[in-house]
């Protein structure tokens, strides 16, 4: 295309040079956005990592969140904080994200058809923690008959803050790996997390702290357990072909 433009040879050279210059410029300018580190392959002899994340020490008393406004829609009673939920019997910790951080090849995943929901019900975000892969769109709903504002705290993804009425739906796409906190400025006690991952090797612990990560190619990896208030714990693991590897994490308040 470039060569058709000018009959004059000198300016031809000049335009070529400039095009190359501007091309390199555009490439470097948005290289971060285009960076894709994960490659999908067919996983043969994949293994599985399973285990429990549990609390080390005496279970601290559950924090209660005071509900200081909008009682007719939000309720009156102080409610248990969703930040740290520990199972009374096995001390398993809920809402921990266990993930393989340094894996660049592995199972196929396609979340394009899946639209996870983040709902607001009686002035609480449901679920409290949502894990998605980069490129996923989340539908954020307001199930309460009052205004909420949905405020995201992030840098790579878009830091939005939008007022929403009853039954309003916000569709937000998260393109980059990042841990995004969500809050509502009107109702201080409300909080949630949308954690965006680059690869599909993650699991969210259930109320007993249990997790399972499947179809992992054999290899040596860094396994990470993230919790919003307990922070990050990592373990090096070695997974053999078709192995079911048990890994337990035990975390405490630092």
């Amino acid at each position, binding site marked *: 295309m470039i060569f*058709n433009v000018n009959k004059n040879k000198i300016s031809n050279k000049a335009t070529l040079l400039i*095009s190359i210059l*501007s091309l390199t410029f555009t490439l470097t300018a948005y290289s971060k956005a285009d960076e894709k580190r994960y490659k999908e392959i067919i996983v043969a002899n994949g293994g599985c990592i399973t285990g429990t994340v549990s609390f080390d020490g005496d279970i601290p008393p559950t924090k209660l969140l005071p509900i200081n*406004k909008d009682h007719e829609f939000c309720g009156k009673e102080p409610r248990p904080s969703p930040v740290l939920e520990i199972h009374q019997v096995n001390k398993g910790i809920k809402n921990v994200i266990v993930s393989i951080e340094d894996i660049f090849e592995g199972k196929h995943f396609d979340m394009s058809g899946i639209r996870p929901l983040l709902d607001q019900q009686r002035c609480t975000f449901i679920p409290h923690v949502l894990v998605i892969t980069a490129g996923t769109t989340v539908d954020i709903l307001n199930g309460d008959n009052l205004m909420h504002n949905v*405020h995201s705290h992030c840098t790579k993804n878009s830091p*939005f*803050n939008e007022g*929403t009425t009853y039954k309003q739906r916000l569709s937000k796409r998260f*393109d980059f790996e990042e841990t995004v906190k969500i809050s509502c400025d009107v109702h201080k006690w409300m909080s949630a997390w949308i954690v965006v991952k680059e690869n599909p090797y993650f699991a969210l612990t259930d109320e007993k702290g249990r997790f399972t990560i499947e179809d992992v190619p054999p290899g040596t990896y860094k396994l990470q357990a993230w919790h919003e208030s307990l922070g990050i714990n990592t373990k090096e693991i070695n997974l053999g072909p078709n192995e079911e590897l048990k890994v337990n994490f035990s975390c405490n308040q630092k």
Partner: protein
Amino acid sequence: MKYFNKKGCIGAVAVAFTVAFSLAITRAYATEGAATDGKEVYKEYCAPCHGEEGKGDGPVAQSIFPKPRDFTTGAYKIRSTPSGSLPTDEDILRTLYYGIPGTSMIPWDVLTQEQREALVPVLKGFSEAFQYRKPEPPVEIGLEIRATAETIALGKKIYEEKECWKCHGEEGKGDGPSASELEDDWGNPILPFDFTKGTNLRGGNSDRDVYLRFTTGMTGTPMPSFAAELSNEQRWYLVHYVRSLMKPALVAKGAE
């Protein structure tokens, strides 16, 4: 696309050429006189508040409220772009020219236009956000509606329904039930605007400015965007109502 026919191609190349050329000129100029090197200007005029690395932690920052902006997160309050978007270069230049009334961020009209333009890439360079995202196109400001007693009354209704009062108070005094608990994204306390105090609006005093603030939201603060909630007409009604809360004398004085 129209622009990419053959003629358009020449045009595009010409544009690229002009850009490259003017860049070359600025470079040459910058090396001669340090005054238009954005980094130098930043160090001299901005770093005392915003910090050498743009973290909002310059030596003067401690004694200032509201705090100088931390540029590393890419959160800009005063934008023409939708909630979640980065600002355009024009948005940043606008803030540099007019400053942010009611704060220690003065209008930087003492600098030359070239100097302000040279600062823009420096500010953007502090945040990785600009490497991941591009600013979205500015929001549209629809046909303006003239203020009447009726539009003000309609605006009042919207103010109640959309619960602006939760933060700004029933009479617009900035004393709503949530007002005392608000924090900005950096954990500093922040107050909702008190409309009765007049027209020291951070993002400018014109009707269009007010329209933009609640349409785009003020990123980094609790002030949300209501773009998805309001039609163009409703936005103007709300502008009229919010204006009616400001004392007439002050409005007249602050009007552009």
